[in-house]
């Protein structure tokens, strides 16, 4: 095994000591600090900083409100009493204790006669008298994991994600007949709509990050998610696959780009599914016909984007179906997760990964447009295509503001 030092085998003990010395000194410093350090000056009469987050509210049955609480503060917190709509209410907890340790979770069950369709507010009163509240904007029975709900949400995902993507793929024969300038136009249009999706997904990721308990550093988590997924996907898409630079090899390269687009859009649609599922679960949206149609229109251009890079090629039907499944399928998964166990932390992370994936695709597609010798990069086709891509997504987005 190769050593990690330059002078292989020589002086390695000394080098290890040099490497570990700061860590050892830090450990000693910490011990001294905790035992003899100036912590005393921080001990004041102030109540300790407490930070509880009600991550999730479940109305599982007519007389039951269940809260999922997380302690994101520096100290353990004791929940002394519970108020619902400005009234103290008896309750029980899982686990059976009042105190939540740092980073700990607790479920609070309150037998409370909530009113269908009306607004309620639950408040945790801690031992120091601090209050942490969460509104239930429109009370409605939370979805239970049963066949009916799974099917309903799956159907929702199919309408909002799968069908439009496949409809978009049907543009494939049309695209194939286009000349080089117009293909470039549609590639630019795809970049435009992906830029819109990246911004939109980032917005959703940051919204989720806002309600993430402070200790989990939602915004940093989003940044890390974006950068890591971008870099990892970039690395994966540039792995040598053993294809020659012949025509077949170039097809595979373009097909891989299409697949990456499908994957990026898939992540975006996962986020969309999360939004639909969780909004539905907390009663924030009534999923009317117009909303579902809105999603369908909004997502149809995504299918177009996927096939644009391979417009001149002859992929098999199976390959096309595969692309559609990668892009549309996650919507179903998203609605399930969002509907049954929405957690802002995971939502923020998923959405951030989606942003990274979309950015990576934008990068690849832009390269593809640049490399096309038939059309100049700064052509009016490319500009108009790009702007139209943004415009179409914005316009159809008006139909689906949740």
């Amino acid at each position, binding site marked *: 095994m190769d050593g990690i030092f330059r002078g292989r085998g020589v002086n390695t003990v000394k080098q290890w000591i040099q490497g570990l010395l700061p860590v050892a000194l830090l450990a000693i410093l910490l011990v001294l600090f905790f035992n003899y350090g100036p912590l005393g000056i921080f001990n004041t*009469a102030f*109540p300790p900083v407490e930070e509880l987050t009600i991550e999730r509210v479940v109305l599982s049955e007519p*007389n039951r409100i269940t809260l999922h609480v997380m302690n994101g503060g520096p100290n353990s917190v*004791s929940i*002394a*009493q*519970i*108020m619902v709509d*400005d*009234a*103290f*209410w*008896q*309750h*029980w*907890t899982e686990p*059976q204790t*009042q105190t939540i340790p740092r980073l700990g979770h607790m479920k609070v*069950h*309150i*037998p*409370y*006669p909530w009113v269908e369709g009306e607004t309620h507010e639950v408040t945790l*009163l*801690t*031992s*120091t*008298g*601090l*209050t942490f509240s969460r509104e239930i904007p429109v009370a409605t029975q939370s979805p239970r994991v049963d066949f009916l709900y799974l099917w309903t949400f799956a159907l929702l995902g199919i309408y909002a994600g799968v069908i439009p993507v496949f409809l978009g793929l049907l543009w494939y024969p049309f695209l194939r007949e286009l000349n080089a300038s117009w293909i470039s136009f549609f590639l630019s249009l795809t970049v435009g709509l992906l830029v819109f999706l990246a911004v939109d997904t980032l917005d959703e990721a940051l919204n989720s990050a806002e309600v993430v308990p402070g200790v989990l550093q939602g915004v940093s988590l989003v940044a890390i998610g974006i950068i890591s997924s971008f870099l990892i996907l970039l690395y994966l898409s540039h792995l040598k696959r053993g294809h020659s630079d012949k025509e077949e090899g170039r097809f595979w390269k373009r097909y891989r780009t299409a697949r990456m687009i499908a994957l990026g859009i898939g992540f975006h649609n996962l986020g969309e599914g999360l939004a639909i599922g969780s909004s539905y679960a907390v009663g924030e949206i009534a999923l009317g016909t117009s909303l579902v149609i809105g999603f369908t229109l909004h997502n149809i251009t995504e299918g177009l984007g996927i096939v644009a890079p391979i417009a001149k090629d002859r992929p098999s039907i199976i390959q096309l179906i595969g692309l559609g499944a990668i892009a549309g399928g996650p919507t179903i998964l998203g609605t399930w997760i969002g509907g049954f166990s929405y957690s802002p932390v995971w939502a923020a992370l998923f959405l951030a990964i989606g942003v990274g994936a979309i950015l990576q695709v934008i990068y690849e597609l832009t390269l593809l447009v640049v490399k096309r010798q038939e059309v100049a990069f700064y052509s009016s086709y490319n500009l108009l295509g790009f702007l139209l891509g943004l415009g179409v997504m914005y316009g159809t987005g008006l139909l689906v503001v949740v």
Partner: protein
Amino acid sequence: MAKKFNRRWMLGGTVGAVSLARGTGIVGSPIPSADQSVLGAHEAGVMSTMGDVDLTRFDPSTFLQSFDYGQVSQLSSGQTLREWEIIAVDQEIEIAPGVYFPAWTYNGQVPGPTLRCTEGDRLRIRFANGGSHAHTIHFHGFHPADMDGVFEVIMPGGEFVYEFDAEPFGLHLYHCHSVPLKRHIHKGLYGAFIVDPKKPRAVAREMVMVMNGFDTNFDGDNEVYAVNTVAFHYHRHPIKVQLQERVRIYLVNLLEFDLINSLHIHGNFFDVFRTGTGLVRDEFTDTIMMCQGERHILEISFRHPGKFMFHAHQSEFAELGWMGFFEVVESTL
């Protein structure tokens, strides 16, 4: 129905809800029968706090019937002299089970001791400020301007002696008058001050009720409401009175932030002696509304045995702790 509900709920695997076993949960629905030992919750669940406070530190049931007549002696003029020592201290108090409030107190308790004297007595109150902020004691009643507890602000470590004659007879109050006034009062510096008429009122079972509230998160809004500080105390520990017995309630409103407070007693009516300054009743009612600083003497005798609820008729206050029971028992004599 209530019994069935509680049992079912217990069987439902909710060991955490131990205090339910006492079955003192109530909701706004009327109580079906007076002799019921388990008071009514319907299917909806149980409105109240969980557990109990540490009663060894402050027991509102004891406070209810405690009157501090002071150290009594005679002046050479023959006038009765009553002396008290009151010290302001910062003290954490438990205002609902498990909920602690960083209070400012007179003698370590909220409300402060109920001071009681007779019209015409000379009162001498030695006040020491052991707290972290400047405080005073402002008494309601007749007294000279320099005994008003407004301009003579007592700094931490300082002392002052208030001395004046007790008049007029009635139910009064005392509280800190340092600024910011709102904070000094709502943090707990107040108490009841009773001046009895020279000819005593008829013998009765007497109790003092100071209606108050606590803004635990300091947002200018009360989280906890109570009578005598502890939310739902008399709900957990009903006040036992005898059938037909004359009960006299010294009721003082010191609730901060909310404009008005009120008291309603179920199933009965009471005589109201407004501010306690008269001996003829002013009103016969079952609900009385009071502004901050208002106080009245109520007299009532219960006609039926059983549990009778009393609470603020502002439902919000009631459900946030200002609620309790009288338990009327037949005389054993």
